[in-house]
């Protein structure tokens, strides 16, 4: 019995244990140091709603054995293109959100297909190359944001009349487009019902997909590609599909993030966006080749919990804002831990 507990603890992993324990501690400490718990919880829920889909975007690629999608920025760029083009076309309000999704989709599909084709050529080295594909595309787009013929006065630099600004306000466009739907306000707690439902729909769709014939094949490819090949599966095609799905989800994810956050951030902003999403899903219990919807939900809550709670609680406790440092160490430590595990399917 004792062995079993030890085993499951080992499976869970020390870093994950520390992080969960840390969050629990923060929650317990919060009232004592004078932080307002409802506000905190409301913050966590809101941030969860912004980030959930970006974390969800990890799932398909992990399932097909492509590893953690460090190339998330590629999908994010598709989303940014969708958002900016939608505004450029003159759509406003909720409609601009719908158009943004519609415009982002073809970009995500094309970029995803190219990215998937590339990853199929370099099986085994996905994660490092994905990181740099993300970086290259972000820096390429930095030039593009300056060059592409955008004219909407709300987006371009006022003086030059061209080149997109680094931060674009979404007021009047799709700010809170989802969050304002059926929003529930109880005292200090504000629940963005619409965003949560949207996340739930996508999460359900992924869950359902994994229960279909193709979804089953995807899991099998990730679990043992040779087995899948011997069972007549076109491994490359399934992997390609998973990459396209991940990229598309990232595109949608960034749009949902922006509607909550209220701003579009361009240029170098998408650069490091993959790392929080990667560490969130790992904190939620996923490994390099196994991930579930539950991992996404738990991970996003834990990660965002730490991000929101540490500044207030720590500040009040030791009068030092160590939140940034703690976030870095916790998330990078988690990724390091996952990378050093023997995660190749047991042979």
């Amino acid at each position, binding site marked *: 019995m004792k062995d079993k507990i030890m085993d499951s603890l080992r499976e869970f992993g020390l870093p994950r244990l520390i992080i969960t324990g840390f969050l629990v501690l923060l929650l317990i400490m919060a009232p004592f140091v004078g932080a307002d718990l409802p506000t905190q919880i409301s913050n966590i829920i809101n941030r969860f709603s912004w980030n959930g889909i970006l974390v969800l975007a990890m799932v398909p690629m992990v399932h097909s054995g492509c590893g953690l999608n460090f190339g998330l920025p590629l999908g994010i760029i598709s989303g940014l293109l969708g958002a900016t083009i939608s505004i450029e076309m003159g759509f406003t309000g909720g409609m601009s959100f719908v158009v943004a999704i519609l415009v982002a989709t073809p970009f995500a599909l094309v970029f995803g297909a190219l990215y998937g084709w590339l990853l199929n050529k370099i099986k085994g080295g996905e994660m490092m190359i994905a990181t740099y594909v993300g970086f290259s595309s972000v820096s390429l787009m930095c030039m593009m944001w300056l060059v592409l013929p955008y004219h909407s006065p709300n987006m371009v630099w006022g003086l030059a009349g061209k080149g997109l600004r680094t931060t674009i306000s979404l007021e009047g466009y799709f700010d809170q487009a989802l969050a304002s739907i059926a929003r529930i306000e109880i005292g200090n707690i504000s629940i963005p019902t619409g965003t949560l439902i949207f996340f739930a729909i996508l999460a359900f769709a992924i869950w359902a997909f994994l229960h279909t014939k193709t979804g*089953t094949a995807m899991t099998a490819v990730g679990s*043992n590609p040779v*087995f899948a090949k*011997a*069972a007549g*599966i076109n491994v490359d095609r399934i992997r390609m599909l998973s990459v396209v799905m991940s990229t598309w989800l990232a595109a949608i994810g960034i749009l949902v993030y922006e509607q909550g956050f209220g701003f579009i951030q361009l240029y170098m902003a998408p650069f490091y966006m993959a790392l929080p999403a990667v560490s969130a899903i790992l904190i939620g219990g996923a490994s390099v080749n196994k991930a579930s919807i539950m991992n996404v939900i738990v991970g996003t809550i834990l990660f965002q919990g730490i991000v929101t709670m540490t500044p207030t609680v720590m500040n009040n406790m030791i009068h030092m804002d160590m939140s940034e440092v703690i976030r870095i160490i916790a998330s990078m430590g988690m990724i390091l831990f996952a990378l050093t595990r023997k995660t190749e399917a047991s042979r």
Partner: protein
Amino acid sequence: MDRNSAPLLTMQGIKKDFFGNQVLEDINLELRPGEVLGLCGENGAGKSTLMKILFGAADIAETGGYEGDIFLDGQKVSFQTPFEAIAAGIGMVHQEFSLIPGFDATENILLNREPEKHNYVSEIFGDRLNTLDRSEMDTRAKNAIEKMGVEIDRHMMINTMPVGHKQFTEIARELSKEQLRLLILDEPTAVLTEREAASLLDSIRGMSERGISVIFITHRLQEVLSVCDTVAVMRDGVLVECVPAAETSVAAITKSMVGRSVGTSQKREIKNSDGAKTILKIDRLWVDMPGETVRDVSLEVKEGEILGIGGLAGQGKLGIPNGVMGLYEAGGTVEFDGKVIPLGSPRECLDSSFAFVSEDRRGVGLLLDESLEWNVAFPAMQIQNKFLKKYLGGLIKWRDEKAIREVTEKYINELQIKCTSSKQRAKELSGGNQQKVCLAKAFALEPKLLFVSEPTRGIDVGAKALVLDALRKFNRENGVTVVMVSSELEELRMTCDRIAIVSGGRISGILPADSSTEEFGTMMLSGVV
């Protein structure tokens, strides 16, 4: 060779079991300085286990060590690691090359034994900062190559060398060790051309004259007779014969290698399918499967029969099913049921309903991290759309968990798979039960032809019988043609109707299963490369 000198090596009563499975029984062997011993036997006879014990291989100690005593120069020894064996003067050349590809021959010959020169830095920071003494390295490598008696370019990079020279580099490495007194050569001629093999034999004679004893493992019996002083034959973990080479012949060795006491295999009905139509026709097949290269195989399988494919390890019998199923690069033509099947596409094979049970259970055969249900149902679901519920006019194909559980439980009962439930993960089962899951997976496809590769490898006797019975039943009751590849001739003779023997990547002959073991044995050794 001096027959009267004291023995260099004495092995007394060596016994070894792997988890209760006896692989060596009471081996007694003696070797004098300068003596060349030829060690023959089928694969699985225990030759390599015996050599591993002598050489202190790690997996021997890990599996509980061995019984019996080994004396070297009259001193009792028991090596825990290969390094201890090397220090005591034993050298071994393995079948797989252990060479650094980007180093030249000299660097490989002296790998980690390079002569060094001290310098000021190494005085402070330790010996690893000594510089290499390149000229001394060159001299030593030159001497070792001279000792071997075969000329190779010592400045040539390994990755640009022909395989034969790689083999010689390894031998030279052993010879460069001053303390070397006993050299074990594990099938060294397998990769050599005829001329190279001949010069190797010369070099073995040369070593023997210098007083180095050699244990020479090979399937080429002619070589054994020409170079060895003594021939030892092993079979099923027993040393069946140990005679001076002058007193034996190829025929006699073959006989003791394969010849179980005739009559043990019970008489059984053998189906003659000569009249039946040809269901599978393989023509001029080549397969690039590492270690199991198929060079040129043409073969016809008749409908409804069980065809066995036998042969020694490394001769290419495993390459045939793997190549046909498209798991390794292959060429040639394969015709199934009158239809040409493109190679390199497992999907096409499965669609034309022939299934494959791989010899590599853990690597190819199973989803180790998934449940038995997934393992059993997966191919049938993907290929034949079984176990799926269709919604929206077939647009959504939903996994039918209930149907999957039912079929899995059916096979769990039928094949007596020992497990806690159909949800148990495949990796938690024992080897025999995993094999049964692989069979269930293939059965669930309801194929017309089933390829089974090494169905009994690494499983215990009880499970073995069950697996073979299941195969036979599947053939006889469902009329499914079975092609079974196995290294164990006896098992093939018990199960199959006809047996094809593969040797040197080619079919060396096909015989009815009730032919004598000697006939099979001769075929096995005929084309060995």
